């Protein structure tokens, strides 16, 4: 059973001064599983993700990733360990093109003895980008165009294509379609299905009930910094989830925390 688990958190907690943004989160994710995290604004969803991805340092608790206790000093650490995150604020550099953005912070280089002035291996990055885009079935008209000149959907696809390019072990998406139109959302959802077929685990933060029920196996609900429900998709429905989000219901095993 333990071999099957890609990510586990035990008593994961984050306080910002006196604000208890995340309190005692116990969470497991199995390989190949797609899990949605839902909850109201400020419920602790993004805080939870920021602890896992090393963007912030947790107050206490344990993270076990791929069988190893994880202590990521920063997002690059997490990324190197195999956790790829598509952030709410895309984290793309508008003035750079697609391969540049995919490889930002981990460029393929030549002449590494030059230190910070080592040369960029443009060709290798371009080839890897093409392969990654093909894998996710993302089509970008012109790889050498700055991201600035692309539509919201294309930009989101670029952000997601990072995942495929780096063969990550876990993908986390923080409201990937919040700013997209209908067709663009469909495109992103198709990519997520591609990941599912490829057996790549995913944590999806979303407010979109339809999307969540379309895409994931399991739903975790956060409320006021705590997990208040862990629901298999088959055992629940939209109304039920809303009841947990708003606080009308709490699963008995999480009730003692209230």
């Amino acid at each position: 059973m333990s071999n099957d688990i890609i990510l586990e958190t035990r008593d994961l907690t984050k306080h910002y001064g006196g604000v208890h943004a995340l309190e005692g989160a116990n969470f497991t994710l199995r390989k190949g599983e797609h899990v949605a995290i839902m909850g109201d604004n400020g419920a602790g969803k993004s805080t939870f993700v920021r602890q896992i991805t090393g963007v912030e340092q947790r107050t206490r608790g344990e993270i076990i990733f791929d069988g190893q206790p994880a202590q990521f000093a920063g997002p690059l650490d997490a990324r190197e360990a195999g956790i790829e995150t598509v952030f709410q604020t895309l984290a793309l550099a508008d003035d750079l093109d697609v391969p540049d953005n995919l490889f930002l912070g981990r460029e393929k280089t030549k002449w590494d003895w030059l230190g910070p002035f080592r040369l960029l291996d443009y060709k290798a990055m371009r080839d890897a980008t093409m392969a990654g885009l093909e894998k996710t079935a993302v089509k970008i008209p012109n790889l050498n165009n700055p991201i600035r000149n692309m539509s919201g959907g294309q930009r989101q696809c670029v952000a997601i294509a990072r995942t495929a390019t780096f063969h990550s072990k876990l993908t986390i998406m923080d409201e990937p379609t919040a700013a997209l139109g209908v067709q663009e959302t469909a495109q992103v959802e198709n990519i997520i299905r591609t990941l599912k077929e490829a057996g790549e685990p995913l944590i999806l933060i979303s407010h979109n009930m339809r999307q969540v029920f379309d895409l994931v196996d399991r739903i975790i609900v956060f409320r006021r910094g705590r997990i208040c429900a862990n629901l298999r998709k088959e055992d629940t429905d939209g109304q039920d989830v809303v009841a947990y989000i708003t606080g009308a219901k709490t699963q008995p095993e999480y009730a003692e925390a209230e």
Partner: protein
Amino acid sequence: MSDHSHGIGGLTFDRSKRAWPNEINVLGALVLIIVIFEALGAYLMGQSFLFDSNERFDSIFNEARLRIIILQVSIIGIIAIGVTQVIITGGIDLSSGSVVGATAMIAMSFAQVAEVNGYPNPKAIFGPGLMDLPVLVPIVVGLICGVIAGAINGMLIAYTRIPPFIATLGMMVTARGVAKWWSKGNPVSFPTDSYAGIGSGMMPVVWFVALAVLFHLILKYTVYGKHTYAIGSNEDGARMAGINVARHKVLVYVIAAMLASFAAIILSSKNLTAQAGMGLVYELDAIAMAVIGGVSLSGGRGSILGTVLGALIFGVIISGFTFLRLDAYYQEMVKGVIIVAAVVLDQWRQRRAASKS
């Protein structure tokens, strides 16, 4: 490429949004300005601005004027190469002019001859032990001045998170103070021949072109360059991508101050003297060259090539005003207008780009 030329699922590609290199616009502006001066010259002065070979047959250009145009912008142009990198990260460096003053004084002190016309050097700062030093000493000392100034700028900005404007404004005042304190306001003169050779004749142009080519390649083909653009483009994004933004900023400010210091070495060598007031408001001219050359003050966009073209526009305008025999007062007034106009143009271009996408 054909199978990548169409989007799917409604993701279409608008050809009109294809990037048009901004350097072409700047080049166009340069040509336009030259044409204007040619027209004004023909109309007001009865002579050509640049295409006047003074009765010689081996060239159609007025080579003396071309030489002056590039020579007068090359020292500030070297500063502008550094300022360009700072602006691309989304920062600003107001200290370069004062760093020029301080470095010129300090470097020159290590480049003095022991004897002038058989008498002891009247401007000597140090005792006889530090006279007639090899030329490498003042160069290294000068560059160290740059490293110190740049490291202080960079660390203030990266670690205390104060705005670059304030940090470098502080350095601007402080470094000017150092320049005046160094020799109690007295000029430092009489450099060694080898030091005087660094900036003699057309050497400033050679240095300018060499450094421009070097940094153009660095910005385009190295990790340093890519991260410089990434930070100016989306600082939080760059941080999330794992770039050490603070360390990179320190490096950028150090390089900018080192370029200002090198410009100071060339300037003091060319003038054979160093004065505490050297490099006054050079920072503004350097910023102007970058902005005219299409470097966006909001960061992320611009290039060394653009800045070089901006420097040429700058030189052509000043030279053109001299050619039309306009007073220096008007030159300064127009310089101010051009700087503001370039920024307005940049803002307008960005708004238009934003509304398109």
